């Protein structure tokens, strides 16, 4: 295999065809279909992203415990292998469906669309997609969501946003998780907020701890408020 650059000058007579072919066109087409269906049904759709191990599933367990009797919520959870996360979410009484990507490092709109077919969406108020743990590829794939929420754990370091700029640029909210560990770590909320807002000045920031419970009620209230807003548009 040759690895040299192959942009040699064209030989012979050449005619040009000017075109615009977006390589993510197929994904964006399906994402728009999902967005429309969610709008028609008045369901709030959240796409939750982060690195592996930042506490997405644990936060969603806590969220489920508090919200499952107030609203009808369902979760689609993506991982490369195993049904473990969906099992953990079902353990707290939330209807969850696992999308096993079989090695693919992100969810695409098509996978979400197929996952939605496996859930009964009648009467659902909130559908949360827990994306594959990865701060790179998921940033490029619109899933038709209303809000993209990215978690950063205090154990990851407060310099994360600029290392993965597109994820924070495309997010609406950054949730700093594992705040109970703040006293033991060289991580500050101010530093991570400043780093993230250099990229995305309109980014909302929340702080939570699924262990101590700090901020979980505020996070749940935010979700409830957005559910109401989405229903308001419908009415």
């Amino acid at each position: 295999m040759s690895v040299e650059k192959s942009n040699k000058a064209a030989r012979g007579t050449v005619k040009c065809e000017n075109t615009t072919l977006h390589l993510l066109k197929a994904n964006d087409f399906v994402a728009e279909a999902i967005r429309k269906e969610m709008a028609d049904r008045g369901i709030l759709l959240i796409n939750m992203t982060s690195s592996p191990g930042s506490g997405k599933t644990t936060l969603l367990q806590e969220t489920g415990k508090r919200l499952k009797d107030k609203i009808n919520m369902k979760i689609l959870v993506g991982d490369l292998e195993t049904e473990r996360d969906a099992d953990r979410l079902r353990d707290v009484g939330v209807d969850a469906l696992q999308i096993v990507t079989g090695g693919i490092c992100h969810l695409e709109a098509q996978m979400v669309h197929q996952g939605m077919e496996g859930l009964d969406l009648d009467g659902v108020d909130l559908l949360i997609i827990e994306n594959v743990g990865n701060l790179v590829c998921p940033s490029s794939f619109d899933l038709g969501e209303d809000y993209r929420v990215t978690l950063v754990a205090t154990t990851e370091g407060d310099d994360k946003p600029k290392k993965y700029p597109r994820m924070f640029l495309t997010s609406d909210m950054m949730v700093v998780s594992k705040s109970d560990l703040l006293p033991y770590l060289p991580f500050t909320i101010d530093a991570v907020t400043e780093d993230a807002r250099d990229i995305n000045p309109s980014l909302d920031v929340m702080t939570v701890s699924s262990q101590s419970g700090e901020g979980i009620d505020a996070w749940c209230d935010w979700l409830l408020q957005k559910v109401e807003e989405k229903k308001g548009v419908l009415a």
Partner: protein
Amino acid sequence: MHEVSLVRGVFRSLEEEFNSDQLAKMQTIRMKIGLLSNVEPVLMQNAFNAVKEDNPQYANVNLDIESIPIEVHCDICGKDSVVSNYRFVCDCGIPTNNVVKGEELLIHQVEFLD
């Protein structure tokens, strides 16, 4: 990101857009790839050469990649400025995340032998 599957996506998009007579005369594919697309031009170029090995009908096709810097538009002063060091700030000092360039991942021109 996933350069090999993206290159396959490039050929698939072109096969949907053009007929086989046109594709046989295809000479150069010109792409625009933004710095925010998470796609690395050198890896893309190498993946292109690798995919060509399995697809001899495209052996003579070249890939030309134009890397696009990130630009933001400022609603206050109306200017577009280039983002450096991932600080999304207009030249006038106002922060903005209104990205107008740098997210491209597209084929913008195809050259055919006449």
